[in-house]
């Protein structure tokens, strides 16, 4: 089991949430104080460096036009960590390739970071959550097509070492692609892909030997997705060997009272508000999903977890908190419930959680929990033949 430290790098110093209609897309930047922001950036990088010293791996992401995440360029953060850390793997989860629009620029950035870190980079790709559509102005009806055209082009660019090649696809036209540098790892860094419901996409990732990751979902749904992955996994010889990754909120404490207090702070992330038009842009989900939405039965993928009690979230495996042995037990329970997984992606900081509280939690995890779960067996692909 690989454990990863993660924070979205939130900017929590907002007016009372009940006075805001949204924290995403259209929240005025007058609410952002650059001096406080500077402190936060430096603090979050300090925590990643502490996580590295503690033997944890380092997970980054990016979002745009939102107070929930001021890491707007994960490659910049990864480049800083590539230079300032020594041991942990660094994963960008992920590059919003459908929204960024230039896959070759992403391929270059990833190759450079892989070289600076001497091969410690894992490269995730994301389709982008619904509200990201608006900052990028990407057509919401074709992000899946853009994602796959982009990923395949990045992999081709990384592995073409004999000079320029031509690509004239649906979304990218370049006639002399010739990457310098090429990645440190051979044939290229492990590729990760995220998903939350589209089983075809999950199987497609599995068949290419990518790692599949999902966030903050009820354990039954995680099992459904991971079973889909395992049924179609094909070992393509990429570093890391594929596998599955799950992100809960994780808080480890010295006492039950402190654990509960920390857990409540982490749920700030789940309570992030946004206006309805940002949650389900037209054509972002399938017609069948939207038929359910018109009937009021589907209101966006993150809505299901909002406003739930911490006990409910704990039962679902979405929020893991307690003293070290309790946390280890909850992770093992989750591992069994979902049929095993390979990467524990831990959102260990959110909202107003202080530096001291964050560091205490990650230290307890690294010293007292990680050893208990480190040797959980890697999950095996269930049905290699099905993918061939």
């Amino acid at each position, binding site marked *: 089991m690989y454990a990863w430290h993660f924070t979205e790098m939130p900017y929590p110093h907002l007016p009372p949430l009940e006075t805001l209609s949204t924290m995403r897309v259209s929240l005025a930047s007058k609410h952002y104080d650059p001096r406080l922001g500077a402190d936060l950036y430096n603090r979050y990088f300090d925590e990643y460096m502490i996580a590295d010293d503690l033997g944890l791996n380092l997970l980054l992401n990016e979002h745009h036009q939102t107070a929930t995440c001021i890491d707007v360029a994960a490659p910049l953060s990864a480049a800083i960590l590539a230079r300032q850390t020594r041991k942990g793997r660094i994963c960008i989860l992920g590059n919003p390739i459908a929204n960024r629009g230039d896959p070759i620029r992403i391929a270059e950035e990833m190759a450079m970071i892989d070289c600076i870190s001497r091969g410690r980079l894992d490269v995730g790709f994301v389709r982008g959550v619904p509200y990201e559509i608006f900052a990028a102005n990407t057509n919401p009806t074709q992000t899946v097509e853009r994602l796959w055209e982009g990923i395949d082009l990045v992999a081709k660019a990384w592995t073409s070492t004999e000079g320029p090649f031509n690509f004239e696809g*649906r979304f990218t036209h370049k006639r002399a692609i010739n990457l310098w540098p090429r990645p440190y790892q051979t044939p290229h860094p492990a590729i990760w892909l995220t998903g939350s419901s589209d089983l075809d996409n999950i199987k497609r990732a599995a068949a290419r030997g990518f790692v599949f990751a999902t966030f903050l979902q009820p354990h039954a749904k995680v099992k459904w997705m991971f079973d889909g992955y395992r049924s179609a996994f094909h070992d393509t010889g990429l570093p890391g060997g594929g596998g599955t990754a799950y992100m809960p909120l994780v808080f480890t404490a010295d006492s039950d009272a402190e654990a509960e207090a920390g857990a409540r702070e982490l749920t700030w992330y789940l309570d992030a508000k946004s206006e309805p*038009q*940002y949650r389900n842009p*037209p054509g972002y989900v399938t*017609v069948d999903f939207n*038929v359910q*939405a018109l*009937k009021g039965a589907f209101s966006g993928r993150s809505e299901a977890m909002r406003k739930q009690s911490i006990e409910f979230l704990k039962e679902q495996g979405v929020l893991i908190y307690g003293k070290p042995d309790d946390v280890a037990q909850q992770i093992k329970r989750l591992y069994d419930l979902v049929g095993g997984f390979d990467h524990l992606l831990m959102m260990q900081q959110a909202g107003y959680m202080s530096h001291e509280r964050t560091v205490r939690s990650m230290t307890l995890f690294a010293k007292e929990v990680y050893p208990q779960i480190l040797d959980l067996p890697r999950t095996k692909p269930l049905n290699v033949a099905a993918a061939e």
Partner: protein
Amino acid sequence: MTIATTDRRRIELAGIDIELALHGEGRPLLLLSSEEQLEQDLPLIADLARRHQVIVPSAPGFGRSDRPDWISNPDDIAYLYLELLDKLDLQGIAAIGFSLGGWIATEMATKNPAVFSKLALVSAYGIKFGGPYDVDIQDMWTSHPDKVAAWKWHDADKGKRDFLSMDDDALGIVARNTESFARFCWDPYMHNPKLKRRLHRIKAPTLVIWGENDGLTSPVYGKAYADLIPGARFESIAAAGHYPHIEQPDAFGKILHPFLD
């Protein structure tokens, strides 16, 4: 009011399976629906079908028409509909287009100025007049749904649709229409940057009809649209938003019917 005869069929255009309804008999009239296809069940259709053969295609991805990946904007749809008229052996006929359908009809008339004998445009999209910082057409996708309803309707209650009373098949069409509208009109938002420079090619007598309370595309926008089409007449309708034919059908008919006759 019932329509005398309705012939529903499917037709292949450029390899795409398209649904087509033909209502009534008489001089042919091409009717291009709005993005929500709200026109399909209006008394207006029956009214027109007493004097015309009303030809109502569903654009790719709308209604039950297929939508291949290569169709990417109203320009593509305009070429399909020109092919439709070729296949039906119709030239120099009257046409009316609502909202997105008005944009498509305008595209057709600029590509083949002889295709229409008369052209009625109702709250058509398709043009951007202002500069980069100007909002010519309100953004219905980044705005709160309540605000969009207030822009679209003079009386927002008229725009409320009871989705819970609709079956999955009908809801599927609502969802397809919503998705396809975004597919074709997301970027550039609701316009073809080239179209403004082509409007002078339109030869058919043109009537541009607008709701005085249209908040999506204001009457000022509608008037500017009409001014770029040679000889076009502009009419506005009081107490009506983006769909004046739905909110004020009588006033609408009094302007439209004499023009078509």
